[in-house]
């Protein structure tokens, strides 16, 4: 019996170093995703987003910097984090009351925390490291028509990293999808397009004022980008979150459907029901979740929403509550 080899040759070793060495800041990598594109996928979650959607279920995706989160259930009150905290974020009252604005995310407390109650969101990785993980599921992609989805946050806030990753996947014959908020520089996206098999394009609200209120930004650039993309031949899937009371009124649905119907091509739509599963993460970040009272849509609401798009002959791929 022997000690296992520490490093095995990577299947991606043949790719150019300039691609493999490109770095990006991610906050998660999830295997076996079934909601981020077709088939079984690995989703790479880039950190940093120009939007701050009120319903965001990954609030750690918004800041473009590493952050520390705290899970009370794992804390055994050993006090090691207090002993190593140099910024004063963690005081005598313990990590549950840490002062997030003082935290520099130096990582000392997460390193000191043996139980993982304090953990970091945001680590710098290379394309090579991503590929090592992504290639573990190559057989599942092949079987299911899946691949890798570059998501976030907003991957186009890190265009070099996204471009290098997409190109690497393309060269390895793995399907690459981009999940975007739609707010990006089109000039930055254009060179990446040939390496993408699918763009998942989020559409939150058609009216700029409401869009601004709900997400913190206007939707003008987003709609322009969508129109530009629709003029080309990239495969696009429109993803519309259905948030009762925010964007599921008939007027808005009609407006959205009409806009999409006016595009040069009929794009397929996915309706994603709101869920409150991210509420816990706000607590872990030491933030308040403003949508605690928000309810999820029922199936009747989802069907009604889907009907608006189908009325305009727009294919609706998914609309389950």
């Amino acid at each position, binding site marked *: *019996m*022997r*000690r*296992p*080899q*520490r490093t*095995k040759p990577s299947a991606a070793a043949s790719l150019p170093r300039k691609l493999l060495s490109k770095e990006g800041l991610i906050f*998660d990598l*999830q*295997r*076996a995703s*079934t*909601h981020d594109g077709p*088939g*079984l996928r690995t989703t790479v979650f880039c950190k940093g987003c120009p939007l701050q959607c009120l319903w965001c279920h990954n609030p750690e995706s918004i800041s473009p910097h590493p952050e520390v989160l705290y899970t009370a259930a794992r804390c*055994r009150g*050993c006090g*090691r984090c207090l002993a190593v905290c140099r910024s004063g974020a963690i005081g005598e009252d313990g990590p549950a009351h840490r002062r997030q604005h003082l935290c520099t995310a130096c990582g000392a407390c997460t390193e000191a925390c*043996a*139980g*993982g109650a304090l953990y970091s969101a945001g680590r710098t990785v290379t394309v090579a490291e991503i590929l*090592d*993980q992504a290639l*573990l*599921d190559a*057989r*599942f992609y*092949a*079987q*299911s028509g*899946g691949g890798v989805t570059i998501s976030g946050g907003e991957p186009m806030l890190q265009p070099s990293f996204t471009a290098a990753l997409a190109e690497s996947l393309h060269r390895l014959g793995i399907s690459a999808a981009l999940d975007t908020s739609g707010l990006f520089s089109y000039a930055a996206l254009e060179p990446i397009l040939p390496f993408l098999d699918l763009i998942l394009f989020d559409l939150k609200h058609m009216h700029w004022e409401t869009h601004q209120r709900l997400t913190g930004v206007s939707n003008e650039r987003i709609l322009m980008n969508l129109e530009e993309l629709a003029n080309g031949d990239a495969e696009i899937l429109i993803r519309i979150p259905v948030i009762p009371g925010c964007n599921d009124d008939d007027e808005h649905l009609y407006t959205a459907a009409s806009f999409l119907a006016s595009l040069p091509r009929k794009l397929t739509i996915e309706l994603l029901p709101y869920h409150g599963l991210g509420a816990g993460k706000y607590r872990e970040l030491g933030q308040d979740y403003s949508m605690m009272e928000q309810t999820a849509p029922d199936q009747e609401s989802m069907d009604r929403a889907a009907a608006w798009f189908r009325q305009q002959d727009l294919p609706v791929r*998914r609309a*389950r509550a």
Partner: protein
Amino acid sequence: MSITRAQTPYDFERRIEALRRTKEAQTQEKHRVIGSMDHDDWALILPPEERREMVETISGSGMPIKDVRLTGVTIESNHPSGGFFGPSITGRNFRSLLEAHPTYVDPMSSLAGGYMVNFGSYRDVGWNPDFNYDHLRPDQERYQLLPGIGATQHFCQDLGIGLRKGWQGILDEIRQYRDWRGDTARDFYDGLEHVVVGIQDWIRRTAEDAKLQAQTCSGAQRENLEAMAKINASLVTGAPQTFREACQWILWFQIISRMYNGSGSLGRLDDLLLPFYEKDKAQGLLDDEEASFHIACLLLRDTAYLQVGGVDPQGRDTTNPVSYLILEAVHQLKIPSNLGVSVGEAIDPGLLRRGAEIMVEDRTGIPKFLGHDHCIEEYTKNGHPIELTRQRAYSGCHWYGLPGREYTMMDTVKINLAAVLDVALQDMFENPDQPPGMDRLLPLYETHLQRAVETIAKGLDFHCRHMQDVFPELVMDLLCYGPIEKGMDASYYGVEFYNLCLDGAGLATAADSLAALDQLVETEGRYTWQEIQEQLANNWDGEDGEEIRQRMAGIDRFGSGGSLADGYAEEIVRTFTRLVKEKPTPDGRSMVPGLFSWANTIPMGRQLRATPNGRRDGEPISHGANPDPGFRRDNAATALAAAVAAVQPGFGNAAPLQIELDPSQVSDDDSVDRIVDLINAHFSLGGTQINMNVVDKEKVLEAHADPAKHLDLVVRVTGFSAYFASLSPEFRQLVVDRIVGLK
């Protein structure tokens, strides 16, 4: 015993509903009387109250259980210990039980029969003490082995023999061979004869009971009971001629086999029933609805293991209409069932698809999925042609058998890989002539593993030498090729092939432990070997114990993908497999490695002290070939499937993947496609079997807190299926931990 009588029209759907309610009531009564049942849901019914006697005994799978005996059964003894040993007296005692056993006729069913006791509960002494294996005990105890000495059944019979010959045909053969052999093996033949005569008596009395009950009914119910009486009267001696008769014959064998020692598998039921189905349909005597009903009645009274689909000796698909009828019957019943759907290149993919649909819709952990190609092709490495291995039939929790031709002791012989590692660690610490380190530990581990395998091998030979004279397989022998002809029990030399299963258990516990030691002690030097030795000895209660325990548990674990622990898991399995296969037992029997812990994770864990992966003294070991729950933050199904595929021993015995899916993961229109893709990908990577649950986390947590809230919740526990409410709190916790993904 409560039977739900017809209040509404007597059609198949309503009868199934009535039969299901009866089963649920019987299960609740068992739970009330016996307590928790951490094993397969047996279709056993409690005896009438006035004939019950509570006992503590050993199950047919070797676990201590509470049980109910039937009073009024005369059991003879032929040993000073009070036990009975050997074929003749065993046959006589079983016949006594059969002759004393009440009849069971449910007018809602099309099939008669039901068993009320386990014959094993009358065996107050399990092993004949005259057959002493004290020379093996020190190493068996040291390595905490499950050696399988005295283990019963766990091989596959050929129901086809019975369907061709009938009980009288079998009895005539026994008598012919006994006469021919003279005094040689007379004891054995007498035992077999007693069993068959007892069976015939029970069936005859049941036919009479059905006839009597018919006289108290009218209409369709009366017709059903009269047909039941006629069929069973005929089957006392004759071979079945129709589909219903075949189902009835199979049910009788299964009931009796179960009652005798928990044995009997339905195997390739679709193949077995096909000739009867085709004949009856051609004559206009049967339609699919009725066929499905008879199958449902069979599966209601027998929860044995079976497969649908497969290949013939030439490798051609054997999927047929009965395969789909069985699937639909299981779907309609929604009770515990151990149906496996064969998945393979040559096999109809429609079976897999339908199986996945049923899995998602019913959420009962049914069916299982069988990686047919690897189980067939890799079994040839044990020295058999593929035309033979293609005849394997799925027959148990994680295993196949060659029907009637092979003795296997499947799922009864286990080595706890983590317990052997603990021996190696203690050996290293107790011999301080050299400094501790991985370069000492790994060779020690291999040495001790080799010794454990050798101890098992000697035990297997010991078992095979003596089991015929302890508790022979008198029922299974009836449907095997060889025992009657040779006058030898299947455990002795009665059948053609001896491929004895040896499973490793606790793989993740061992692999994660080695990785934690390698990374945190050897490489990073965060802790010394001395510190770890002290913490293990003190169950992590030493200074900074909890912190050290959490860090050792916090490394990248087996299943995370490409980690050191993944590497160790593969290395452990490679070594284990090599040691099992490198030589036969001293008496020349082949051993075949697998990875499976069945229901032993709790008792094996109780005996094992703290382990370097952060596990505490007495906590359960890891389950089978699976990574421990919480192996990745995302608990990705693909990671789990890839990890288990990478640790297959590769000799045709299974190392199943146990996987739990939350309904939210399968709520989309293409969820069935994803499940099919996951299954196909796992098998293409080398997987051999998948046990799956689609179960709502909230529902399971509710049921765990108050089982009465969800009495009908059925789960796949390990290889077996059971009502969640009937499990002990400890066992329920194991299932909950997997589903919640926390440890």
